[in-house]
């Protein structure tokens, strides 16, 4: 019923006549008749109003929690109102990749600004225009160092399991042997890493803070990687990195991460944003789009896609990656978010995450049967034990509109952000107390 085709039936007839055919079917002469479909088995079209009702009803089959204490790769943060206002502008939403630079300066400049902000966050020299998400950014980073003489790559077991699985999938395809470094006490087992890191290893991947929220001795991991002749890749949280040492300060060669906390809604897992940054000597290995500054023929400052000799549309099978698009609108979202927050605002956000998580951890661990599973310092996530079955606790929390922490191994991975007020936290703690009493 809905149709976005402007031409009228009369106009279509005129057009067919200009082409010199009688019917729309005549345009498909090249398609062998035997192969043609009789009829699509789909519902008939509906009006816009009907579709809105159907989709709204569908959305209401989901439960929206009023308080979220779960992260594990997707984080509930405040999104300033200006973010949506800017990112819904029709030009930004509907344009294609900025191939025609003369009429795409808006998008190109916004990406240049994004690249600058990612460099500032991570301390690295060069950022690309973004990739699909944090997990694929991690995989692309490992692939940057594919080397016949160094067939192995190491990844810490304290990395988010979804990231490990994604890196594994890419590596298997590409012929890189990915080996998982064991953990001890919730962090990378340094002794094991020292044994495993040898001259056959092309790169080492770790996550800071790690999957369990713990801030690892990333300096040490970097030193071990480099002394084995391997490159050092860090996956970082873009909010945490504003108050914790930067990947550059830790000595990383590549910094990647999930950009979702920078203004993207939880949205059942996507679209999110993968950021990737590296040092000058390595930048030509970066996959994806990169925007550079240049001048036009009149000497005006302008921006353009550059270093394209790395890319699939030029290099085809010799390209550094098959990636074609970036997540431009998500990169724009991140830029507007960082601009609205400012350096002080984003650090305040990070400090509130840190402080509220510590307040929550302390309060939960005052309840009998709950204790911290690991001793390492943490950012906004931490793992506690749980004296009862986690699903029973989660179900009770759900009744009160609270999404509790994520059950991992035999504990619970909690996440607390600036979105969780003290009142919310206190309610959470009192419900846990109540449920676990008997």
């Amino acid at each position: 019923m809905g149709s976005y085709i402007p031409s009228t039936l009369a106009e279509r007839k005129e057009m067919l006549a200009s082409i010199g055919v009688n019917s729309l079917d005549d345009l498909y002469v090249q398609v062998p008749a035997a192969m043609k479909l009789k009829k699509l088995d789909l519902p008939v079209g509906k009006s816009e109003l009907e579709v809105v009702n159907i989709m709204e009803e569908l959305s209401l089959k989901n439960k929206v929690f009023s308080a979220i204490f779960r992260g594990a790769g997707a984080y509930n943060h405040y999104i300033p109102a200006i973010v949506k206002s800017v990112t819904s502008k029709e030009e930004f939403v509907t344009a294609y990749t900025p191939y025609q630079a003369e009429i795409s300066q808006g998008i190109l400049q916004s990406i240049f600004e994004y690249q600058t902000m990612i460099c500032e966050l991570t301390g690295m020299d060069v950022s690309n225009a973004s990739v699909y998400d944090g997990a694929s950014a991690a995989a692309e980073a490992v692939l940057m160092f594919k080397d016949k003489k160094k067939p192995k790559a190491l990844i810490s077991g304290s990395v988010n399991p979804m990231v490990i699985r994604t890196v594994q999938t890419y590596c298997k395809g590409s012929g890189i042997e990915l080996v998982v470094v064991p953990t001890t006490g919730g962090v990378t087992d340094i002794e094991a890493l020292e044994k495993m890191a040898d001259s056959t290893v092309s790169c080492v991947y770790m996550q800071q803070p790690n999957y369990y929220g713990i801030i690892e001795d990333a300096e040490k991991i970097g030193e071990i990687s480099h002394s084995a002749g391997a490159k050092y890749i860090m996956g970082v949280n873009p909010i945490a990195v504003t108050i914790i040492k930067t990947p550059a300060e830790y000595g990383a060669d590549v910094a990647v991460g999930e950009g979702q906390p920078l203004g993207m809604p939880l949205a059942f897992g996507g679209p999110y944003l993968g950021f990737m940054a590296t040092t000058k000597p390595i930048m030509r290995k970066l996959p994806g789009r990169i925007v550079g500054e240049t001048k036009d023929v009149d000497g005006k400052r302008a921006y353009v896609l550059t270093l394209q000799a790395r890319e699939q549309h030029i290099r085809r099978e010799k390209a550094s990656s098959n990636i074609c698009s970036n997540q431009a609108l998500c990169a724009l979202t991140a830029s507007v978010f960082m601009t609205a927050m400012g350096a002080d605002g984003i650090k305040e956000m990070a400090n509130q995450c840190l402080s509220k998580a510590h307040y929550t951890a302390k309060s939960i661990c005052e309840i009998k049967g709950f204790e911290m599973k690991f001793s390492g310092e943490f950012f906004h996530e931490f793992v506690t034990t749980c004296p009862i079955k986690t699903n029973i606790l989660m179900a009770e929390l759900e009744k009160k509109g609270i999404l509790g922490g994520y059950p991992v191994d035999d504990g619970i991975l909690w996440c607390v952000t600036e979105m969780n007020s003290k009142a919310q936290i206190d309610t959470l703690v009192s419900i846990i107390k109540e449920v676990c009493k008997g």
Partner: protein
Amino acid sequence: MNLIFEKSRTGRGCSILPKSDVPMYSLDDKITRKTELHLPQVAEVDISRHYTQLIKRTHGLNNGFYPLGSCTMKYNPKVNEEIASLPAFKKIHPLQPAHSVQGCMEVIANAEKYLCEISGMDSMTFQPAAGAHGELTGILMIKAYHEARGDFKRTKIIVPDAAHGTNPASATMGNFTTVSVPSNAEGCVDIEKLRELVGDDTAGLMLTNPNTVGIFDKNILEITKIIHDAGGLNYYDGANLNAVMGVVRPGDMGFDVVHMNLHKTFSTPHGGGGPGSGPVGCKKFLAPFMPVYHVVERDGSYDFDMPVQTIGSVKAFYGNFLVVVKALTYILNIGAEGILEASQNAVLNANYMRALLSKTYDIAFDGICMHEFVISLEGLKKNTGVSALDVAKMLLDRGIHPPTMYFPLIVHEALMFEPTETESKETLDEAVDLLLSIYEAAQNNEEQFHQAPLHTPVRRLDEVGAARNLVLRYQF
């Protein structure tokens, strides 16, 4: 214009967060950040105006005709955006328990059902975030399929010389060697050459049909059979699906695995380069190899299933969910009849433009085309010195986004037009008139063409300089 950093003033900012209501906690100095963090210090009004200035320097679909070949720049219905903004979609944590995300799962399940029907496939994953990401997924599934049969000698993927650059690049990411099969005089796969290339080292073929010169390869059943007979699988690059929806299905052409671009064919916007969505559909025998988190219905409710021989994961979670929401909204809206009508009118519009231009311009592989066609300006360039690039730049001054330039590689001085179904007859007429007048003007105004564009926010750029003198960020 200035960068946002150049508009920054110390002390300016926006007020967003409340004061912390818990005691502040401090990290040990040994792990705190020492490097200064420079982000813009601007008021909200500065942000609003900055980006408004930027959109004035951006050509969107709302600004005018966008016949960018191979990219299907069709109109993006606004209701899609509204639906994707519903709080009960946006505020859902991806790791909520299954019973609390039944709506999201039903979106994915319904999208799978409808897109499988359109493509002729049995099963679908929504994890891939873009077309190229879908290609990688499909390639890894093909690899896993052969290896699961203990067949490790299949190291080659066959790709036509006219293919998108992502095809060979994706094959490389699966550690395959790409073998290029030449096109024949009609712009289609050279069947005899294909026969010579296949063997027991053939893992598969990657093909788009209609192909990149806008021709439906009528030998498609023979092509896919040659690959199957050699023990390989057929991968359908869905970039050109907008020509044939409701008319013919990749599954009925002999393809085993396909990706679709929801951001092309199913009207979700391109966002200046993303986010897109590149779901991969496959025949039943390949379903065990799909990425993790396949939505299935069991006893009236939805849950995630783990395909038994899964290739793993190509990203975190389940794909670009909100993009899938938009595509489903579109399918429900236009329905079975609208899907067919969309393809028919995409083909009608392309043929109408082609017919009107063919008296003046050289159409590569002339004849009835599908949803796009390619013109070659080789002759024009030889006679006048005006190249495809010059014509494209001249179009910029006239408010039309140029067609895709210099692709496919097998056509010299190529311009590839894909008008899509959502353009009116008068838009096409205006574009044709303009192109005809440009052809006329090119005959004795070479220099004027080299100067174009004159009226865009910036003029031709020094791309060589950009790559030589790399400035990839603003320095504070």
